[in-house]
């Protein structure tokens, strides 16, 4: 009967391992996306203490925006396109208008195309790091400060930064 017990024990371990493995897939997926630049995932942390460098190399950065679902907001980039020097810090912003009469909370997720260059798009100041609150009928300017890393591959001429805005007002009450 000890053989039987050994069998049960080892099978149960496989079951428990595979259940945990499904949760391990979540960080693994993130790491995989970061390494390969899939999904255009940008660095979600602030870059601090960056030094400007002169590279004399210029690329086009385009800005787009999407409002998830059919939420009552206007959300647009201030400038649709900028020509920037690689290695220099630039500032631009997005304009958000709340078309309702009540206080709302939003969050925005960034994504960069082409995905493999996402890691070179570094954000110094970005509204995507925090939940934003906006009063009814208010229009707000959301600033964005970024630098294109000097290691950006030479064949990249254009980068597109896209923000998707989500209404997270229901999390407001939860806090």
């Amino acid at each position, binding site marked *: 009967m000890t053989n039987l017990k050994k069998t049960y024990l080892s*099978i149960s371990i496989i079951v428990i391992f595979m259940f945990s*493995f*499904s949760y391990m897939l979540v960080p693994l997926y993130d790491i995989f996306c970061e390494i390969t630049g899939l999904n255009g995932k940008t660095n979600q942390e602030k870059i601090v203490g960056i030094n400007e460098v002169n590279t004399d190399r210029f690329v086009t950065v385009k800005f787009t925006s999407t409002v998830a679902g059919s939420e009552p907001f206007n959300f647009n980039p201030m400038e649709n396109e900028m020509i920037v020097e690689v290695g220099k810090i630039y500032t631009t912003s997005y304009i958000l208008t709340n078309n309702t009469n009540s206080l709302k909370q939003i*969050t925005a997720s960034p994504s960069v195309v082409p995905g493999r260059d996402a890691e070179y798009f570094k954000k110094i100041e970005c509204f995507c790091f925090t939940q934003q609150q906006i009063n009814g009928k208010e229009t707000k300017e959301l600033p964005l400060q970024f630098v294109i890393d000097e290691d950006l591959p030479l064949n990249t001429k254009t980068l597109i930064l896209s923000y998707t805005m989500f209404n997270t007002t229901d999390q407001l009450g*939860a806090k």
Partner: protein
Amino acid sequence: MSANIHDIHDQHHHTPSGLMRWITTTNHKDIGSLYLWFSLVMFFIGGFMALIIRAELFEPGLQLVIPGFFNQMTTMHALIMIFGAVMPAFVGLANWQIPIMIGAPDMALPRLNNWSFWILPFAFTMLLSTLFFDSGGPAAGWTLYPPLSLQGGNSMPFVILSIHLLGISSILGAINVIATILNMRAPGMTLMKMPIFIWTWLITAFLLIAAMPVLAGAITMLLTDRFFGTSFFTASGGGDPVMFQHIFWFFGHPEVYILILPAFGIVSTIIPAFSRKKLFGYDSMVYATASIALLSFIVWAHHMFTVGMPLAGEIFFMLTTMLIAVPTGVKVFNWVATMWKGSMTFETPMLFALAFIILFTIGGFSGLMLAMTPADFQYHDTYFVVAHFHYVLVPGAVFAIIAAVYYWLPKWTGKMYSESLGKLHFWLTTVFVNVTFFPMHFVGLAGMPRRIPDYPVQFADFNAIASVGAFGFGLSQILFVYILYNTLKKDVTADDKVWDGAEGLEWTLSSPPPYHSFEKAPRVE
């Protein structure tokens, strides 16, 4: 010794009778029968839902049901057929056959066995009850992709809990199968002497314990996303809906082999019996089954070629998927080689097994077409996919189950079914299965999407044909129930060795076999 046997027989008088016998039973044959009857009931419930779908699709326009209910039917039909009909039928066959094929008295864990069956009726009651909710049942497809599944009505937590229960049931069943096969074989039966059906079930059981916990994890994440504020798949919290597809199909692809490997085992048992030859290439059959199982864990993303994977990923998943055709091809060639120059006869189980080989191969070929990434961009989410997986699941898995029932029914009951009714059942089923599913290839290639209640008029003719076929197929299965009833009420007893070409320990037992199958382990040379 004889006193001992008398004691064992004495105990039988203490087993409860009536309903309590079935609720408290720990006997592998009783539990096997419960599984098989349960699966038959679910096959008809799921089939009824399929007929609602086909009735709506008989002609363009919305006639019978509203689109929301149509979506609930496609979702429920899939969940019930996969988890309620095919999987329990295979577990039922495993329960009946494993002890009598390996020379054991019963399964290794009889009480666990009872429990793993009795979870099922509760799980399906919960799942089916959602259809009576105000917000209706699940309607996001059986794959439960977020964000759609997160936006569904109140059915969602019920569906997830019932899938959890089904997963627990399958895992317990698989533990039992592995423990029985590894520890309770008759002396002399080495692993490479096991009947091929036992081998396929052993490998299936390992797939179950590796894949089902991953499904449990994925749907638990859905549940916490919806109710506990996590953001595994909610983009607003930094999650990614595409990740669900990866985790789901990491379970989902091994799952489709869980649904077909035992069928391979059944066909590999029946073909030699009616060809009166040994199975050609037994060793290669075992290795082919094992390699299909291993490959199934590295091909999952071929279900999601269109989500925007990098080229390297698409090429990898395309090539590994095509690689599966190699061991599967080995199997098909081995079946054909087994029949080569055999003294073949065509009783009902053999007919179903032959139809399996031909029609499953058609389903395999359409699978190869879908495996080609560039072609898949055209076929993705069309009726071509529906045609493909119905060809491998209906004339594949379901035909193998029906063949197994005809093959072993005389052994289980001690009574012979009517051969002429069995053949009639075979021909009706085979004709209608093709009338139903073959036209779906054409509408799929022409671009008709899956899961739609209405469609443009150019698809009308083939859809009408498919609907006629579906009703014919459904009604033919009533004949199957009649054949079962007709067999059970007979009092002519079948021989112990029902089929003259059949080999294996189960044919050395009486028909029906004694309550404790092998009280004394047989010796295998």
